[in-house]
Structures are given as C-alpha cells and as structure tokens.
C-alpha cells in the first residue's frame, strides 16, 4: 500500500496539470488579487482647485487661511486657486485636478454655498473634496451659531469677533471623531483572497489521486495490481491518501506563500492546521463520491469540475451570498468553502485555536455525510 502511495505521489508531483491546479493557478490569483491590487486608497497630496468669491468672504478666508495650510501640512490635499468656475471645471475635466471647491457669493439673506465640482464616476477622488467642503461648512455655521448665541445671551456686551471664534473652533479638540477600522472586520483582504482561492482550487487538486483509480482500471494496471498480494481496500486507501496528502501539500504551500509574499495573516497556526486538515478531508470526500458514481475517468473529471465550481460559487470564493438574506445565507453554508473562511474569520482577531471548533466540526460532518456513501460506492470501482 505504501509503495502505491509513494509511486502515485511522485507521479502526481511530476504531473503539470496537478501542479497548475494545486499550486500555480491559486498562487497567481493570490498574487494578483492580494498583492498587486491593494484596494481603494486615497492618494496623498491630492490636487484640488478652489474658486473664491469677490469680494472675499469669511468662508473663503476660513478655507484658504485656516484649512488649506492644515491640508498641506497633513499631506491630504494641495489647493490651487482658479479665477473662475469655468476654468476650474475645465481643469477637472482635463484631470489637472481631482475636484474643485467653488465658494459662492452670499445671497441677500447671507446664505452661501460651497459647491464641489466632482469628476464623473470617481467617487474616491471626490470623497476628499466633499470632506473638506463639509468641514468648512460645519465650522462656518458653528461660528455663526456662537456669535448669534452670545448676542442672544448678552445683548448689551460688544459682539464677539468672528475670526477669533473661528480660530477657537479650529484649534479645539473635536468631541466627536470618526476613525477607520478597515482591518478589524475579520480577515484582511489579502488573507480573504488567499483563503478563497486556496479552497476553490483544493477541490480540483484532490481529484488527482482518486481519479487515478478509474484511469488504472481502464488501462488495466488496476487488475495487475490486484493480482499481487494486495487487497482492494488497500488500493483504495492508498489512492485516498494520495488525494489527501496532495490537498494538504497544496494548502500548506499556498498558506506559507501567502504569508511570506503578500503578508496574509491567518491567526493561530494550530487553528489553521485543523481547518486545513478538516477542509482537505471534506474535499477528498466529494471526490470519493464522484469516483464512486462515475463510470469513466472523463465523467469523473467533468463531474468533479462541476462540483468544485458549484461549491466554490455557493461557498463565496467569488462573491458572498451571505448578504442576500436568509436563503442566500442558508445555501452558502452548504459549501465547505464557507466553513473554512468562517473558521479563519473566527481566529483572525488573535483568538485561541479552540475558536475553530465549530467550523471544523461542520467540515468533519460534511466529510462523513459525503465520504461514507462515497467510500461504499468507490469500493465497487476497485473490485477485481
């Protein structure tokens, strides 16, 4: 049995198809998605235009004298003044600047508008300009409120100086702040991609061991094997082991590569190991059932591709179904891919390996439910 296992493993490691599906394809995708495209990122020193009203207004002064130096110092944006709205709009269209802030002339009732000239279809570029406009708007309105409130409460005192109030507001520590915690929502994007691609291709990789049974039966080497002092069960176990070891090897190489190359963070190594071992068992169980049902190697190969694609799509390798309500949330849980990612998510915040107990349990249950009937059927394939 050991000889069959060793011979098959070595043969599969020399097989380019196995290497493509087990290592090369998922690794290429992990590198593209996880490493080279780092996700939405707001650039530094964003070039923005500004058009000020004539004569100058307090809002314009606030923008140019208080806000602009801060933006430059923090390397958020660099403001360039344009004489007219038309020239600023042309600069936006020509992509000389990312957006422009037009400070309007106050109307008869003192109302004033800051208009953000936004380029078409670039929401990320526009976000910074809108944020600046909202900040200036909020501060200008707060100055008006302070001056008005002081007049209401102390009508006989000298009215406060708006510029002083504005400076006080600008230097005050904000009482409400918004922080970004994009990395704390579970797996990092790199880890999510690595896990998704590794599990998707795992279901193709494990076929290379057990499918060999059908090829060997066709070319007659299985009959010759069984003529030797070796039982059908030993042949079946050897092929199962080949599938399982190939799956574990593929997952290990991919996880280590993702960790080293794109700095994916998987959490507790013991938790990850348990997920890999149970995930590969679930994948091997599906290929066992396929080999038990299929009559020819072509049928089995095609059926395994279907199962791999089907479970990959349902399990969220490409996009999540969990958002789509109860039905989507229920069917995505049928795929082992979902539980593998779920396990990684549960240990992503530094939790102990015991946090993967639930997902590992589901993966093992899947292995038993699919694998036992698979084994019973696959034994027919190795009957002399």
């Amino acid at each position, binding site marked *: 049995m050991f000889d069959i296992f060793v011979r098959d493993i070595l043969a599969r490691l020399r097989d380019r*198809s196995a290497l493509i599906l087990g290592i090369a394809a998922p690794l290429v995708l992990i590198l593209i*998605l996880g490493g080279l495209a780092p996700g939405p990122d707001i650039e530094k020193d964003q070039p923005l235009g500004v058009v000020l009203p004539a004569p100058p207004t307090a809002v314009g002064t606030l923008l140019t004298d208080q806000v602009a130096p801060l933006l430059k110092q923090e390397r958020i944006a660099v403001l360039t003044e344009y004489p007219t709205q038309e020239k600023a709009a042309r600069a936006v269209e020509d992509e000389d600047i990312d957006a422009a802030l037009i400070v309007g002339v106050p109307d008869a009732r003192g109302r004033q508008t800051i208009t953000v000239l936004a380029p078409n279809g*670039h929401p990320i570029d526009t976000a910074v300009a809108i944020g600046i406009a909202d*900040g200036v708007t*909020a501060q200008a309105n707060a100055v008006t409120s302070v001056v008005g409130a002081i007049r209401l409460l102390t009508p006989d005192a000298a009215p406060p100086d708006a510029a002083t109030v504005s400076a006080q507001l600008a230097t005050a520590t904000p*009482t409400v702040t*918004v922080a970004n915690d994009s990395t*704390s929502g579970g797996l990092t994007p790199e880890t999510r991609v690595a896990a998704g691609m590794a599990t998707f291709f795992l279901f193709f990789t494990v076929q290379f061991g057990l499918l060999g049974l059908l090829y060997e039966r066709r070319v007659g080497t299985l009959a010759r094997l069984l003529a030797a002092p070796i039982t059908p069960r030993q042949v079946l176990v050897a092929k199962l082991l080949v599938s399982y070891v190939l799956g574990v090897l593929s997952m290990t190489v991919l996880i280590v590569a993702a960790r080293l190359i794109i700095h994916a963070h998987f959490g507790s190594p013991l938790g990850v190991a348990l997920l890999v071992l149970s995930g590969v068992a679930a994948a091997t169980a599906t290929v066992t059932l396929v080999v038990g049902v299929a009559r020819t190697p072509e049928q089995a190969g095609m059926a395994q591709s279907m199962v791999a694609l089907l479970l990959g799509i349902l399990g969220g390798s490409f996009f999540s179904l969990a958002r789509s309500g109860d039905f989507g949330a229920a069917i995505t849980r049928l795929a082992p891919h979902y539980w593998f990612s779920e396990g990684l998510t549960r240990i992503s915040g530094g939790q102990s390996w015991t946090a993967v107990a639930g997902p590992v349990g589901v993966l093992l249950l899947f292995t038993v439910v699919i694998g036992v009937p698979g084994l019973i059927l696959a034994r027919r394939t190795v009957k002399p």
Partner: protein
Amino acid sequence: MNAVLAIIAANLRRMRNDRSNIFFVVVLPLLIVVTLGLAFGGDTNVKLGVVDPVRNTATRDVRAAISGTDEAAAETLPDTSRLRHDVARGVLDGGWYVTRSGAGDDETTVITWVSGTTGNDIPMQNVAMSAARVASDRAEAVRIVTRTTGADPAAATRAVDRASASGPRVERATTTVGSDKANEDSTSIRAVLAGSQLSLFIFLTSLMGASSLLTSRQYGVTRRTRAAPVSVPQIIAGEALSRYIVAIIQAAVILLGSTLFFGIDWHSPLAVILLCAAMALVGSGIAMILGTLGRSEQQVNAISLLAGLALAALGGSMQPLEFFPDVMRTVAFCVTPHAWMNNALWRILIDGKGFSAAVPAILVLSAAGLVLIAVASRLLARRLRAM
C-alpha cells in the same frame, strides 16, 4: 456551406448527448444567474450595523444623517465582535461602533467605522464624518458660549440652537463635471459588480469548451470528417462557429436570466449584449487555441481554469479597476479582455454614458476575438493537414 452546417449540427448533437455538457452550457450559467441575483439583485440599500452603547446627541445625529440618505439601512447589533464578524463575512456592507475616551471636558465620542469588502459603504462613511463634524462643532460652540457668557450649558445649548436656526447658513452642494450625469447610487454600483461577474463567467464558460474540441480530435471525429469531401477551411469554420454558438448560448442565459429574474438594470442593453457577444468571441478563440494545442483533457481544463480566473482577476472582475494602481490598469488593458468589458460597463452604468462609450471596447474585443480565431484556425489547419 452545408458541410459547415453539418459539422456545427454534429458538434451540437454530440454536446447535447453528453449530459455533463448540459451542466456547463445551461446549469452552470443558470446557477451563476441565481447566485448573481442573490448577491447583487433585490434590496439595493447599503446594509450597515451599529453598536452604540453611548447613545448621545452626536451619535443619534450621525445615525439620523445616514438614515436620511434613503440609501442605507442601519441595524442595531449587540456587540463589536458580531459587527466585525458580519462585515467580514459580507452579511453587512459596513458599520460602526461607538466608544468614549477621556472624561469631563476632555471626553470624546469616537465613532469607529468598520469597512466591508465591497466599498458600498464608502459614501455612508463620508455622511457619518460630515455629521460627526457638525456635532463636534456644535458641542464646541456650546462650550465657547458657556465660557464667554457664563451661562449654564443648557441655556448655552438652547441659544446655540436658536442662533443656528435663524442665522445665515453655509451649505454644501455637489455638481458633476461634464454633460452626463454620474450614477453613483447603489443600484448602479451593484449592476457594475454583477457586470464584472458577467465578464468573468462568460469568458470562463467559453474557455471550458476547449476540452470539447480536444476530445473531437482525440476520438478521431475530426480525422473522420477529413476523410469526407470536406475542406480544411470548412472544418475550421464549423469548429469555430460551434464553439461560438455554445459561448453565445451561455452568455445569453446569464445576461437574460439576470435581467429578467433579478431586474438588474443594464442602462444600455444593446451595448451590454454586444459586449457579451464580443467577449464570447475572444473566449471562443482562446478555447480553440487550447483545444488545438492541448494534449490531455486534464491539462486543457487546468489551463482553462487558470487563464479564465487569472485574466478575470487581472482585468478587474474580482476587484474594480478603479482600485488598481495606474501601472496595473495599463497592464490589464494590454493583456485581458475583461478590462475592456468592465471599463465599458463602468462608463455606461456609473459615468452615465450611452451606447457610444462601449463602441471602442466592442471593436477591440471583436478584433481580438477574430485574430485569436484566425491564429487558432492556422494551428488547427496545420494539425489537420498533418493527419
């Protein structure tokens, strides 16, 4: 011509008789339609989660500002671990949790935003930041008034609110530059996401046809056809059209299914149909090359999957091109058909452009498809003549 039609009919019959092909031609595209519909159709609101044990005026204002956009639905969650889990697993598009830091006059309310994977929550994060800024400035205004006038905080708050309601206001407006209106609502963004999956799966299902050409060769069907009075160009035309018809059927199932059953609004359906047809042409060309050069079914299927998914990833089908660095975007346009289709869909669905925005992509993809089919035909002709 009859010979070409006979080859097409024979190929389609052979495909129909093999049940596994029904999976790839009909079941898989239908499955894609259903999952696309579940993932991107239906409720278009941005789904957010909120953990707010603080519940002060500022946090209520932030939540009211987000609900007031009519673009988002915020659900109260019991704790941050549930919020992080649901965002990480894609149940929610994003969300925020509220904490306090400091004490007394130095007390700060911290709203921490947890971003999802889709980027759908970015506009809502901006709304939260604006509302937080207004709340912060209002609180500071009350402090200044209290300090300056000696009034108690309640009286100062009332005075600030009265002054705010009656005084001249500054407002922010947004105008899109250019003649077309940008569609940055969640319906259009979802259609773009569905479109990126459309390009991925049309190309992938087209490539999966490569093994069919290979088995034609291996079973000797092509050789037997050659023995009949049929010329090499007729065989090639028959094989190429067979692949293309199958690819078009797959594309039609995905496109029509997602439009009819899940109401995805493609804005310019004709442009999208032509883009799909051109994409299927490129996929058929590559499938023919793989089917001609491939040695075994396993090898061809492995390369088809690798090419189908790697090109899709590089071409912006798994992450929007907008998020790519400039160099990567250029590479994507040079080597993947997906970048052209995804960019054209972005211009139609988000930039609000019409049919004309898709014309360059349709032309480039059709030309690339024809060149690939010509290359495949030469390779196949060489193999057939060598028989």
